[in-house]
């Protein structure tokens, strides 16, 4: 466990930390310090909501999300490796299969609300007791009575002829209740796979890995990783996680079942080797969780995968739902997104605690060297002049700065005329890839896309991408569908408090020929509006990490992006409306013309062809010069 106490202050993992990430580290710290008194399990139980496991529906999404994040990171890394080594790129493919585990009845002993075992029907009149997915053998069968020993307690089933047997625990009548729903979530990727020795650490240790210690655009900023999903499964069903992984160099895949012990160490239950694996290399995780599954709607797994696929056009997704329905979200791009790079903190975004921590953790020998090497965009001259002005010795050890000195330094740094931080740390989806992908998803008639240049807010680089799709197969009833993303992760909750929603609502849509706008400012009709915020640090509104905080700089960028798309939409719509009305009119006239020609021919004995020709001449004249009648009709 990489906590302060254990790893010591020389471990440089504070570098590049900032607030939100710090929160998680705080959790880890707390975890570490309370290790003796409180178990990891208990801590998790208490803080489940912090990690996104608020309710059964959201828990399902969180588990899928964590696993998909993990897989996307792994497969992308692999694809980049391929690219670097000039091998044929193996594009990410991720399979998500969710199945309903049989859900029968549970036995709840008197005076408790925790089930002690499952009760399952095994024959027409026969029932058995099951524990952790395994059928138990009865210790004694006597007439219409069956006896079992479960964890030192005696369970007795008496078959009375009623539908269900009567159940006694330690000779006291026990309750039999419907068990809450269990689902098996299984996610497979074609990533590099994980070396056998590392599997327990990656999946069986909270906060393992390096995601939280880097200042770069990453998905993982949203959760605390796949191990939280493992822990959630363990907490709700008690069934260990099953990991199967195969690396290129090995012939067989390895399957490990594991859980997380109270001291945050992985426990491996079993290890097997198998020839069966879907890909040449990759990782599969299977978790049995207590959760809820919805087939459609904003907060469904389908929607999550669909939305994930839109902003990850270089990856394919296959979703198999509990009802066996299979959805394939095909890759639409042959280009890998740019690999985000790590950056050092920019002085304009520093906060006091952060600076203090950086000073404590740095390897630099002098404060000047610290400013130049540990922060971004501070030149040697700039450092010299700042320190001189503050009357701080530039050779002073960073650790030795007094509180007042740190405060002074921070103020000076905030005001210093510095270049903006580098923005190549960001990995946008890209205009063309996003256009293709949203077109493939919505089958719209028109799509406007923009990927804005990176900009900086409080020393933190970020960029906004937006798209507006219109018409085609987009449903025209109700409000526009809004697709919100932060660092390529779909945001499904708390739409109303999100900066993206504010940006959409603050737009004057009518100005852009959008015919009807709901009272809350969202366009009505066949529109899909997508906003993506990519940043090394996304300011979320809360621990739930489902809405982007409404910083004016961010909203401004979002609105600029939307306005750009809306302008394109407007010119399309106005041309479209004109064309359509014209085409409708002309089409109607053309449709009736032969009939009129026939009737007139009968009345006058003039040839039909002659009449048609004359009518076409009139039509040409009328549709080029708008006649008075025509104008009236358009109104």
């Amino acid at each position, binding site marked *: 466990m990489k906590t302060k106490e254990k790893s010591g202050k020389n471990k440089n993992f504070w570098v590049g930390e900032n607030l939100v990430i710090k929160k998680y580290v705080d959790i880890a710290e707390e975890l570490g310090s309370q290790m003796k008194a409180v178990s990891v399990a208990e801590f998790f139980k208490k803080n489940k909501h912090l990690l996104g496991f608020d309710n059964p529906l959201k828990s399902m999404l969180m588990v899928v999300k964590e696993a998909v994040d993990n897989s996307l990171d792994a497969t992308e890394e692999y694809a980049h490796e391929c690219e670097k080594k000039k091998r044929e790129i193996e594009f990410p493919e991720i399979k998500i299969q969710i199945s309903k585990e049989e859900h029968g009845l549970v036995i709840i002993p008197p005076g408790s609300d925790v089930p002690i075992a499952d009760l399952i029907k095994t024959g027409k009149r026969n029932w058995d007791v099951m524990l952790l997915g395994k059928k138990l053998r009865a210790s004694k069968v006597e007439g219409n009575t069956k006896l079992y020993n479960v964890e030192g307690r005696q369970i007795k089933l008496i078959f009375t002829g009623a539908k269900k047997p009567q159940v006694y625990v330690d000779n006291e009548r026990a309750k039999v209740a419907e068990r809450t729903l269990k689902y098996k979530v299984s996610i497979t990727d074609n990533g590099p796979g994980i070396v056998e020795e590392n599997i327990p650490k990656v999946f069986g240790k909270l906060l393992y890995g390096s995601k939280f210690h880097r200042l770069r655009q990453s998905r993982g900023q949203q959760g605390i990783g796949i191990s939280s999903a493992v822990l959630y499964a363990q907490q709700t069903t008690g069934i260990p996680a099953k990991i199967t992984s195969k690396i290129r160099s090995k012939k067989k895949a390895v399957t490990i079942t594991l859980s997380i012990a109270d001291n945050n160490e992985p426990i491996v239950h079993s290890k097997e080797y198998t020839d069966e694996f879907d890909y040449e290399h990759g990782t599969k995780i299977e978790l049995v969780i207590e959760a809820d599954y919805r087939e459609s709607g904003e907060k469904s797994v389908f929607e999550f995968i669909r939305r994930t696929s839109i902003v990850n056009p270089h990856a394919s997704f296959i979703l198999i739902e509990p009802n066996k329905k299979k959805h394939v979200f095909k890759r639409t791009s042959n280009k890998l997104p740019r690999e985000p790079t790590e950056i050092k903190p920019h002085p304009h975004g520093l906060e006091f605690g952060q600076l203090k921590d950086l000073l404590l953790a740095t390897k630099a020998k002098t404060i000047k060297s610290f400013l130049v090497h540990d922060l971004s965009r501070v030149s040697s001259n700039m450092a010299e002049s700042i320190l001189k002005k503050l009357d701080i010795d530039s050779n002073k050890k960073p650790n030795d700065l007094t509180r007042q000195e740190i405060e002074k330094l921070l103020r000076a740094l905030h005001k210093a005329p510095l270049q903006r931080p580098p923005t190549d740390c960001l990995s946008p989806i890209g205009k063309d890839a996003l256009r293709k992908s949203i077109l493939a998803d919505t089958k719209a008639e028109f799509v406007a896309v923009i990927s804005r240049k990176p900009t900086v807010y409080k020393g933190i680089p970020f960029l906004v991408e937006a798209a507006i799709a219109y018409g085609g197969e987009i449903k025209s009833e109700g409000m526009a569908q809004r697709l919100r993303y932060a660092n390529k992760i779909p945001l499904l909750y708390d739409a109303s408090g999100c900066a993206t929603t504010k940006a959409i609502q603050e737009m004057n849509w009518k100005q852009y020929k959008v015919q009807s706008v709901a009272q809350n400012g969202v366009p009505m009709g066949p529109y899909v509006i997508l906003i993506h915020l990519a940043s090394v640090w996304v300011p979320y509104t809360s621990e739930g990490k489902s809405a982007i905080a409404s910083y004016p700089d961010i909203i401004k960028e979002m609105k600029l992006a939307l306005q750009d798309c809306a302008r394109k939409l407007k010119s399309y719509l106005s041309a479209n409306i004109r064309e359509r009305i014209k085409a*409708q*009119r002309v089409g*109607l*006239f053309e*449709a*009736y013309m*032969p*009939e*009129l020609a*026939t*009737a*007139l021919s*009968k*009345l*006058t004995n*003039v040839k039909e062809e002659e*009449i048609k020709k*004359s*009518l076409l*001449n*009139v*039509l040409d*004249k*009328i549709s080029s010069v708008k*006649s008075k*009648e*025509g104008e*009236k*009709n358009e109104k």
Partner: protein
Amino acid sequence: MKSRKDIDKKLEELGKLLYKEIKEGKNPYLDVPIRSLSNVHFNPKTKLIELGDATSKRYFFNVAHIRKFVQTLEVAALAKELLNVDKHLSLRQVFYAMRKTLPGTKIDIVDEQTESNQAVEDLELITGASREELHINANKNGAAAGKIIIKDKGDIIDWSKLGSGGWAIPSNTEGIEFQKVDAKFVIYMEKAAMWERLHEDRVWEKLKCVIIASQGQATRGIRRLLRRLNDEHGLPVYVLTDFDPYGWYIYSVLKFGSIALAHISRKLAIPEAKFLGLTAEDIKKYKLEKQKIKFKEVDLKRLSQIKEYDWFKEDKRWQRQFKLMKEMKGKVELDALITRGISFVSEKYLPEKIKNKDWID
């Protein structure tokens, strides 16, 4: 009556005019007299409901007009065809003849019969030719009996020798030739049952008259027939209806014309028609009060509407009837006379009323 040739020529002229406009690169249009209440009025001089002069232009190259424009032209072309082969179609058959789908679209030229019916009426207005002259008929309805001999399509028909059914009145009575008329007046009644009663009692023989009936509102064919008997042979027309706002309206249409057919009031209405139906005085006289059918809301409403008609407004005798009916809060049917005897209506009611000139003019 205009000859077939005249009508044919009219239709051809209409077509040629439109073609001329098209050839000149103009948006062709039809001038259609407006057939709504705003363009209909009662002329106290002629005592007819007449159509005003307001017209509206109906263009082909106009999204809102094109459908009706083509419908009207379709009827015109169809009418020309009918005239050329000298055959007739009913309104229903006209609807089917026009029921085509425009190629390559889902647009039908007509969806409902009301559309083709309207197109026919519009064409009447545009050409000044009646529907019958355009060889388009309504369903036939009604019967006639009396001492009259006619010629219809070459057949000689004696209205007094047609058994219990009488002569079935065709929808188009324009072509009927009266060969011998031996009657003093015509009785028109709104109910076939009453006609059968009078026919069985041979009233037409005893009173030397013609009896004609339809079911409810008189058809155009019957109205034209009545009008012609009145015009050409000077026979007074007596209208026999219930003591009922609806019965009075039937009388009103026969005498003054209707809003829907205001454009042909001059051909159909019979300003000299007289009301021989039940009056408030008859009810008292023949003690029919007990046979009263209580008014419903709609009856009262209808009564107050009729009361306000321009042609009844100044008429004291009618206003008296309306007032008495309103007090009675009910209506009485002619059939109630049966309570006085099976043939009371033929032997007593009619002869007495006619002898005493006990009608409302």
